[in-house]
């Protein structure tokens, strides 16, 4: 079977799974199978068929598993969003259309040689910085939960950080490819860029008050630097500097300090000062409310979960039990409904996606392609780790999206551009082999 036929076969499987998922949500909620649920699945399948045709035209030799896996993840996300809030699911559906257009556009524009991006690396770098600074601007930016990550233009809102991430990777891939020999020698003056980017990450951290994004950007940078130079020393130094910086920020920024406290001690037996309403409350009823409720949701899922559409997310009065369930905490919703068996399978899909990404990087035969694939893949893995790890209390919780699954336009678009990038690299490597 050719690459693309294999992809098609995989997509058919995903399509069937999607139809089943929607049907089960429908049955659980309405006691009937409606054609509406199947039309969702049908629409969804048609979309991916179109994406598949674009891939057939532009990247015939690309990895045949990535697109179906992305389709599966978006389908799971869409099903769960639909189950939580049908209106949001409709909007998310529209965003998936937009994202697939961006995916197609990226493939069409770069199908002949994506490597010419390398010559625009500084443009990408500057754009990334510009995008990152946007939310900090007084008029455009808004603060959600004490973190400045959003930009509002009229009724439209988006998180520029998501796209900045992809741009930053393109820049780093170009820059590191050029400088890797000099950097590997380890002369003192070559540490300049390292310090510059460390400073940048810290700046982002202070400006946006967001530990997660800083960790993500800096992690991507360190990973790419390591692959480019092969020197552990840099990684060690980088981590050391990051920790030192984070420690300093911990002492000077109240918001970050609170995040750490919540992470270490989400439950208290006695009442502590609650900054939200100025009262004395146990911490689980105040600052760590979200984290604790989300953990209850995860643990309630137990081995097999409650079943799609049967989880408990609302009080008997109809109020929300867990805030931000659609976006930051969608994993805890899935964990409750699918149980350990379900979410472990889901995480294995992520793991598979990541390992395919690394395989593509191995097979690519020029430095820029390798670094690009590494950057994109590691960004994907690290982002998943930061949000899910935050929910599971492995690291302090920060609100970023779960790739392909969370509700949110900018995230879906950025991740499909990321996917397009990986397919382009993979296509080139495989085509040369054939």
């Amino acid at each position, binding site marked *: 079977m050719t690459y693309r036929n294999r992809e098609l076969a995989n997509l058919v499987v995903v399509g069937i799974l999607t139809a089943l998922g929607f049907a089960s949500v429908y049955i659980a909620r309405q006691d009937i199978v409606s054609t509406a649920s199947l039309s969702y699945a049908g629409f969804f399948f048609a979309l991916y068929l179109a994406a598949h045709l674009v891939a057939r035209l532009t990247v015939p030799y690309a990895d045949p598993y990535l697109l179906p896996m992305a389709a599966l993840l978006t389908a799971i996300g869409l099903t769960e969003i639909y189950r939580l809030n049908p209106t949001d699911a409709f909007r998310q559906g529209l965003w998936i259309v937009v994202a697939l257009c961006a995916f197609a556009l990226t493939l069409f524009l770069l199908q002949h040689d994506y490597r010419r991006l390398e010559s625009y690396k500084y443009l990408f770098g500057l754009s990334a910085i510009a995008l990152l600074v946007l939310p900090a601007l007084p008029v455009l930016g808004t603060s959600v939960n004490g973190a400045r990550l959003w930009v509002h233009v009229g009724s439209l809102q988006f998180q520029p950080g998501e796209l900045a991430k992809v741009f930053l990777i393109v820049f780093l891939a170009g820059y590191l490819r050029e400088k890797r020999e000099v950097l590997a020698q380890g002369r003192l003056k070559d540490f300049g860029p390292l310090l510059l980017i460390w400073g940048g990450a810290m700046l982002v951290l202070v400006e946006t008050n967001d530990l997660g994004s800083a960790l993500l950007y800096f992690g991507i940078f360190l990973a790419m630097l390591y692959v480019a130079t092969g020197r552990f020393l840099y990684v060690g130094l980088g981590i050391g500097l990051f920790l030192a910086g984070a420690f300093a920020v911990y002492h000077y920024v109240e918001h970050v300090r609170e995040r750490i406290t919540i992470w270490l001690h989400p439950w208290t037996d006695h009442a502590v000062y609650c900054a939200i309403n100025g009262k004395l409350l146990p911490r689980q009823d105040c600052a760590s409310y979200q984290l604790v409720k989300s953990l*209850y949701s995860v*643990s*309630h899922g137990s081995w097999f979960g409650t079943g799609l559409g049967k989880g408990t997310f609302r009080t008997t009065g109809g109020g929300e039990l867990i805030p931000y369930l659609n976006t930051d905490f969608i994993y805890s919703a899935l964990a409750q409904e699918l149980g*350990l068996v379900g979410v472990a399978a889901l995480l294995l899909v992520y793991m598979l996606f990541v390992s395919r990404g690394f395989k593509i990087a*191995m097979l690519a035969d020029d430095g820029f392609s390798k670094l690009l694939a590494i950057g994109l893949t590691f960004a994907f893995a*690290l982002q998943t*780790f930061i949000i899910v790890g935050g929910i599971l209390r492995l690291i302090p919780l920060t609100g970023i999206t779960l790739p392909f699954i969370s509700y949110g336009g900018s995230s879906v678009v950025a991740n499909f551009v990321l996917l397009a990038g990986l397919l382009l690299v993979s296509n080139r490597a495989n085509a040369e082999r054939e």
Partner: protein
Amino acid sequence: MNRQIARLGLVGVALVAALIVATTYWQTWASAGLADRQDNEIQRVAQFSIKRGLIRASDGTILASNRIKKVGGQKLYLRRYPQGGLFSHVVGYSTQSRSRAGLESSMNDYLTGANRNLDTVLKTTLDRIRGATITGNDLWLTMRPGPQRLAMRELASKCGSVVALDPRTGKVLVMASRPTYDPNLVEKDFNRINNIRAACRPAAPLLNRATDGLYTPGSTFKVVTASAALDSGRFTPQSRFFDPGYCIEYGKQVRNAGNPEAPETFGSVDLITGLEHSINSVFCNIGKAIGAGKILGYAKRYGFYEDPPLETPANERSPSGLYKNGELFRPSDPRTQVDPGRLAFGQERMLATPLQMAMVAAGVGNKGVVMEPFVVDRITNPNGGVVTRTKPRKLRRAVSRQTAQELTQMMEGAVQSGTGTAAQIPGVPVAGKTGTAETGIPGRYTSWFISFAPANAPRVAVAVVLQDQTGFGGQVAAPIAKDVMQAILAGKANP
């Protein structure tokens, strides 16, 4: 570069693997611990997706049922209590905002089908696999709605409690407590429950006074003292006493009831008359003769000093006994720590629950054997099959058969020609004992009546307590006891 990529690849895979491990931890290892946490609302709400079992009175009257509410496309079974405040202290409530109380709390496992009986386990597991609604088991109580309604009506606006037991089995037939509350209001308007007006302070409408209300038993405790006196062989019903109107303790006079300046005086009497007319000096002298330790020993045989065994939650029941600074007081040396004379007529620091005093009456009536009180008669599965049925259990023998018989005769005398004449039922021999305990506020008494009937073969034993009364137990409590006994005896012999 590929070597670095391979290494980094391992890191990437390890990151996701760590997530799988952490998820496993929370969903298996830590799961049970989190489910038990007080603030776990998910767990509490999730229980409402279970079709909770019904709670019924002995004749089938529904005391707790469900109303279906759809929230976010999900069916929730919320509780309805058709009888309002009539049974609320025993049945309790199951709500989201205030968790649970009463049998709704203590029998939660049965009501939600989470009990470990094999056929329930099989059925709920099947339902879970099929995705069907899980249905809980129904509770059938021993309580009788007619007499219960009567008791609640007669308590009216007074603060107090009525408990009626079947002395032969320990079945709770009536358990009334006033002021009461409407369990339907717990979720939507809790303030209305807390802000009620009542004849006593604190009103404490949520308190089950029958099992958790502690009152000075006063003269009803003389039945316990008499048990000790007779059963120990130190006295007989014919033992003679001289009553000058008081008894001397620690060099001071302890006077009989009535006007303190001119207390009732009976002269030379026997123990039978002593109990019939509830003469304090007689019992004061018995107390001095046999000692506080002996009296407390017999109290324990009736169930004092232990949580009364009942299916309601442990924190809604209190043990009876001596209390010191709000704690149950177990004297290490009763001879020096307890005033035996005052203890003998139920003052000192003795406090008892209405349920406990009903158990005393029932024990005497049941030829000296105290039965364990119980309120859940049987539990049935949704198809009507019996899951478990409560077998009557003996708590212990309190006094010998002969002592019980002598006590019964004396208590019959109290109703026939003593302080408890208001409890007479035409054609039925009644045995009873009044009590009027001092509260420390002059003119304010805790009025009691304990009784059983028919005296020769009792089918009902009752304890009535009324707080903050101006009338004596024989005047205010005995008529209520009479009506409740009559209602129970008039009903079917063995429902």
